[in-house]
């Protein structure tokens, strides 16, 4: 381990390539197009058209407005860059960076594919995966607190305070709701969770391998409860409707980023959508099988079974399989993002006391009972 400097440049280079690839080729484009999808889907739901004009410049080609995110990015960069005189300048600039970085950092432990060219498709395969996710997620309140405090404006301040106590409240149900999974698996490593699901059935779809046992079908009840609590808590963590009180425009204008403009505002915006992507990736990884997609297959030898697309296979099939797994993962994430958007334009907002009641009393108690339900099943049916 000490002669590290001599040995593993390959490891460093692949890690750097994966990092850059995930951030710049996948997450940032995905963020931009989630914003576009949000606008188009909300238009669809409200019987409007939405942005459908921006296409290739100087031509008549509209492409259903697919050029809109690029135009938005250019505008964010070119807009007047104003730091109002009443703010606390250093923290005012620091806050957007702190709001953006944690959601990108969390992605580093989530397996987004199986193997490609003999390299595991996860940036950091660590044993404490899920705890790392929660630890970094708990740091994302600093961007919001600092934005609210440094803006020296009532709306920002109240938005920041509200947002912080909402996020910490739902961190509890987030942390509690996934414990049944780890009771079952006995590991905190996210890569192992997906491998387990690929071999023994997704946690919410136990149709093959060990998943066909009576115990797994009994465990489906607590796992479903976990899934519901976890998903709703992710909505609250990412400040999405119906939990968007920190930026409830009828009460607080824009909440903690009221005083922000141009790129500094854009970073909050990006951070929020990146957090959505991270949250969806987590849901996919924990409950919906990660990169794995079961393919119903019939062969005369084995009969009907689900085939595993293996990225570790040698040669061309392995490469195609690896790419297929990555596409599967981000496809699932995209479906969940569409669900996030659908919910946003369907449900009304909670009142603050209802939100706190839901988090602290309803979810907290359900998650706690759920843990002992799971433990009981595993205890009496070992």
């Amino acid at each position, binding site marked *: 381990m000490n002669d590290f400097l001599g040995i593993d440049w390959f490891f460093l280079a692949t890690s750097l390539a994966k990092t850059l690839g995930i951030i710049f080729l996948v997450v940032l484009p995905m963020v931009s197009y989630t914003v576009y999808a949000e606008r188009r889907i909300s238009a669809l739901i409200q019987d409007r058209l939405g942005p459908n004009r921006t296409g290739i410049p100087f031509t008549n080609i509209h492409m259903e407005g697919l050029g809109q995110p690029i135009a938005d990015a250019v505008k964010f960069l070119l807009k007047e860059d104003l730091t109002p005189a009443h703010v606390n300048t250093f923290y005012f600039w620091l806050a957007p960076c702190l709001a953006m970085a944690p959601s990108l950092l969390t992605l580093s432990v989530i397996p987004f594919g199986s193997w490609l060219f003999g390299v595991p498709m996860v940036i950091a395969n660590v044993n404490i995966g899920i*705890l790392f996710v929660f630890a970094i997620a708990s740091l994302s309140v600093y961007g919001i607190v600092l934005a609210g405090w440094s803006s020296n404006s009532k709306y920002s301040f109240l938005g920041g305070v509200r947002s912080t106590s909402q996020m910490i409240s739902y961190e509890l149900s987030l*942390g509690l709701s996934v414990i049944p999974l780890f009771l079952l698996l006995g590991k905190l490593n996210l890569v192992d969770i997906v491998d387990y699901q690929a071999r023994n059935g997704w946690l919410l779809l136990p149709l093959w391998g060990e998943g066909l046992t009576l115990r797994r079908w009994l465990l489906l009840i607590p796992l479903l409860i976990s899934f519901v609590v976890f998903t709703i808590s992710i909505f609250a963590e990412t400040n999405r409707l119906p939990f968007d009180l920190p930026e409830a425009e009828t009460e607080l204008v824009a909440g903690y980023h009221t005083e922000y403009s141009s*790129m500094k505002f854009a970073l909050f915006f990006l951070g929020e959508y990146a957090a959505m992507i991270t949250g969806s990736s987590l849901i996919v990884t924990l409950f919906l099988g990660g990169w794995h997609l079961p393919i119903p297959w019939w062969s005369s030898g084995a009969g009907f079974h689900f085939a595993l697309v293996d990225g570790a296979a040698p040669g061309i099939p392995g490469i195609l399989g690896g790419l297929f797994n990555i596409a599967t993962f981000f496809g699932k994430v995209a479906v969940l993002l569409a669900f996030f958007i659908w919910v946003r334009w369907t449900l009304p907002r909670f009142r603050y006391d209802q939100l706190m009641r839901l988090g602290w009393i309803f979810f907290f108690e359900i998650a706690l009972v759920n843990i002992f339900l799971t433990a009981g099943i595993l205890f009496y049916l070992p």
Partner: protein
Amino acid sequence: MIKDYLPILIQAVVAIGFAASALVVSIILGKAGKRNPTKDTAYECGMLPEGNAQPRFSVKFYQVAMLFILFDIEIVFMYPWAVVFREFVRAHHPVIFWSMLSFVSILTVGYVYAIKKGALDWKK
């Protein structure tokens, strides 16, 4: 091993670097801000700012933050418990189940007390 954690360091550097460079690029490319007194006052829906910009807020927020720390510690203990649970059950050590049950029961007393005293009731 520690080697597994180095990519996280790389990712952190890239993430913070991206955020910082986005800000720098917008300073270079963006229009310099033209100041005027209106832009330099806090936004209050068109009215002049009134009173202290950082109003004192309800003690409930502190209560929630403190209770959060306490229950967060409870949750932290549950992760090692979850990891070793099935090993203990397989080795016939039922203590693992009852130990956590009693730990959580002790904490539930505090939780029920906080609810009964209205610490988590935001309507009041």
